């Protein structure tokens, strides 16, 4: 009898958590319908892309796909992704160990320094490095040929790694902190050397954390448009844009599909590695690794990464501002209007994203059905699909079907932002929905408040912090979005990133400095919000 009653008790509890309040069938249906509409809208750009690619005659498509150019692009993209992921692990994991497991002085300061590169969008780092160390850059011009040039594929790997390794650093660090480090002591007492203990005890426990960070780094590397474009590296994202600019849209569409397929493979691999949180979750600190003579080189290494990622670009930007070299280009002269346009677009995107996120997040947070999971997952399309692909798909929609919207008003561009960044809003809103105690909602119902009244007076106030956080995230990431803005920008509406792009194209870097500074500040704010959301204990 015992097991049956235990099971019954558990199922009772489960039911109560999922809120099978009688009489909400109709509102649940309305919620499901709204979620379905949002999911459909968000997935629709993929259909446009497929449809456009489908109009390419099959033989032609085949020839394009097996051409040596496509092979080169694929090889370059895969090499870029693999190299960035590997380098990020090689930098991020040791830094994480250094700041959590050793007697490194000032661990908080060095943790912040090591995480800080996330504050700078990689394309802004790229523009700084390329202007100084690229071919035709300042050092090139001054000394003829120089130290290894930062451009092309190698340059892209270098810059993207510098700005994405913090993903691996932060997730590994979190895994290390949640792991009971007295396990390492236990291994040492069982006669394992320090390195052996790391390999046999620590590594298996932090592997899910490393994998999570590596996935983020890989996704970032393969989707990043700005850095390869500035470095003139021939990868999917940059080529898609160049082909699109050269009116070779069919090839662009085929490449975009291929890119999406590769991203899908990465996601599948990641799902295979799994993120099972089997960390031992102890609080024991265990013995710290004594760095001894290695203390100074370790501090030097962390600091030099900080200098490379933060100080060098900032110095370069400042020098542009001060020196004002090159011919003046009046159209690129900084105007507050650029910033206002950016803010206006980002505000619209944030508002619409929150509006879209509410029904999906609420439905999936309160109902655990196949339908609710599928609808929620569908809104995550923007997480996997690179911006340049979404941009291209909406260009097809705009030019073919809705010419009145294409480059005419802000709505097509705002929609693109929403598709791309909706996952951030859904994620924060959903987690705030999940935090609501089901009992509170039931209490409201027994206190004579109907379903709508309950939502207005109890649920909405409780999830408001999540909605606002989601909106802030979308706002800040929209501000610095590059490829979709380039492809769908309403005519005459220049934003900060457009000015940076144009300045780089005209090699008039000084005009990029001020917008770049503004975007660095915006990115910094994003990190503050993100870290607070994820609950990373950075200090």
């Amino acid at each position, binding site marked *: 009898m015992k097991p*049956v*009653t*235990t*099971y*019954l*008790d558990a*199922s*009772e509890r489960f*039911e*109560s958590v999922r809120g*099978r*309040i*009688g*009489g909400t069938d109709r509102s649940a249906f309305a919620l499901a319908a709204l979620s379905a509409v949002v999911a459909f809208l968000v997935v629709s750009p993929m259909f446009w892309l497929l449809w456009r690619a489908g109009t390419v005659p099959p033989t032609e498509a085949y020839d394009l796909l097996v051409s040596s150019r496509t092979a080169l692009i694929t090889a370059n993209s895969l090499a870029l992704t693999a190299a960035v992921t590997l380098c990020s692990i090689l930098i991020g994991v040791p830094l994480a160990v250094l700041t959590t497991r050793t007697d490194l002085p000032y661990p908080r300061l060095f943790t912040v320094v090591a995480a800080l590169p996330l504050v700078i969008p990689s394309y802004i780092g790229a523009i700084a490095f390329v202007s100084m160390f690229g071919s035709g850059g300042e050092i090139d011009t001054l000394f003829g040929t120089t130290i290894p040039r930062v451009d092309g594929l190698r340059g892209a790997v270098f810059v993207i790694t510098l700005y994405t390794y913090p993903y691996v650093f932060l997730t590994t660090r979190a895994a290390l902190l949640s792991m009971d480090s007295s396990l390492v002591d236990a291994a040492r007492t069982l006669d394992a050397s320090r390195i052996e203990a790391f390999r046999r005890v620590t590594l298996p426990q932090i592997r899910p954390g490393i994998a999570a960070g590596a996935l983020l780094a890989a996704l970032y590397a393969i989707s990043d448009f700005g850095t390869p474009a500035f470095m003139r590296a021939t990868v999917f994202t940059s080529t898609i844009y160049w082909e699109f600019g050269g009116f070779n849209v069919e090839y662009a569409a085929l490449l975009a599909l291929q890119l999406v397929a590769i991203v899908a493979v990465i996601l599948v691999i990641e799902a295979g590695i799994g993120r099972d949180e089997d960390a031992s979750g102890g609080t024991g600190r265990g013995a710290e690794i004594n760095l001894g003579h290695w203390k100074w080189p370790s501090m030097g290494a962390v600091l030099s990464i900080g200098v490379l990622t933060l100080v060098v670009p900032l110095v370069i930007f400042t020098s542009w501002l001060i020196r004002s070299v090159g011919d003046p280009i009046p159209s690129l002269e900084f105007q507050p209007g650029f910033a206002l346009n950016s803010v206006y677009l980002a505000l619209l995107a944030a508002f619409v994203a929150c509006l879209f996120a509410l029904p999906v997040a609420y439905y999936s947070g309160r109902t655990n059905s196949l339908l609710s999971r599928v609808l929620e997952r569908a809104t995550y399309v923007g997480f996997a699909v690179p911006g340049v692909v979404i941009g291209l798909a909406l260009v097809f929609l705009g030019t073919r079907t809705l010419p009145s919207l294409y480059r005419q008003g802000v709505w097509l561009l705002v929609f693109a932002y929403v598709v791309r960044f909706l996952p951030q809003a859904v994620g924060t809103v959903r987690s705030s929905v999940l935090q609501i*105690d089901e*009992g*509170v909602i*039931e*209490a*409201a*119902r*027994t*206190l*004579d*408040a*109907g379903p709508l*009244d309950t939502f207005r*007076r*109890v649920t909405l*106030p*409780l999830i408001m912090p999540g909605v606002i956080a989601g909106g802030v995230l979308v706002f800040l990431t929209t501000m610095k979005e590059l490829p979709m803005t380039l492809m769908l920008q309403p005519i005459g509406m220049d934003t900060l990133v457009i000015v940076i792009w144009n300045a780089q194209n005209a090699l008039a870097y000084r005009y990029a400095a001020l917008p770049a500074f503004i975007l660095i500040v915006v990115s910094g704010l994003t990190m503050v919000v993100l870290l607070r959301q994820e609950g990373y204990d950075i200090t």
Partner: protein
Amino acid sequence: MSVRDQHGERREAVEDFGEPRDPQTTSEAVLELEAVTKNFGSECAVDGLSLSVREGELLTLLGPSGCGKTTTLRLIAGLERPDGGAIQVGGERVAAAEERAFVPPERRDVGVVFQDFALFPHMTAAENVAFGIEDWDADARETRVAELLEMVGLEAHAESTPDELSGGQKQRIALARSLAPEPEILLLDEPFSNLDVDLRVEMREEVRRILKETGVTGISVTHDQEEAMSISDRVAVMAEGKIEQAGTPEGVFQHPESRFVAGFLGHASFVSGYVSGDLVETPLGPIGRDRIHGLAAEYDRTEIDVLVRPDDLLVRPAEEGAADGRVTYRRYLGPTVLYRVELASGDVIEAMHNHADRLSLDTPATVELAAAHDLAWFPAQR
């Protein structure tokens, strides 16, 4: 053989204790459950349960976890829909499975105090209390909130938020909040389980006082038999989705209708007996037939089991030859000591003694029946 078979067997013989269940006497019933059934998937949580509760009464559903008591409460509140049967609140039908009729919780005159209190975290104590009476006019609402806060003794905490309140204070606010709209019925789901032991006893008295003061009909749910006995006018013991027995705390405790009820309400030992004329022969010596509660004539010359509670028995050390059995277990509980004695007949009994008494393990002992009250009995298990 299951407990309920015996129970049914005995129904004919014994029908004079507990509360009357005759439909005529339930005309003043404020709550009526008729053969209510609720399934979760293939599991039956509530199984054809019938119950009626009279106005102003405080009834407790008592049972082990998973017996369906909380589900019953949620069915009454309208937080679950029954799969079978019907529910009436104040003479109005609020759920009837056959007609697919269902009144949502907000339109039932039922208040609920939740196990974890479920206070709205974004509102102050006073706002929580005022939640259910938002449609009252402002003056009346303010008066009502002040009155309730005074009743629960938290006038000073009106502007506190839930996270500033202690467990007992949260409970008081939850109680005041549920009483504010003047519900016909108040449901309390394990209301004391989230409180410290000391506070629990204090709050029991407090809650009973408040319920009696307001005259509201109360139905509470608990797995703690002491709590159920101490606050209720009537106790309904539940097992496997059904009510095993309902009645006054004394009635149910002293005259359990099934071995399950006997065992769930406290330590229960059984000594076998043989009914022989005016006496029942037991290993503890003969007991007068008149001391066995409602022993019907047809059980003459059969084996029965007599229920003895630990405080009914006295265990004394004895010489090997004169002993009834041996002490096989002792547990020191502070003020008292619990002894387990294995009788020569094979029956095992438990007895509670003052802590000053000392009996060592494995000593021979006599067991004496020292109860002044009637004893309950069950047909012998074969």
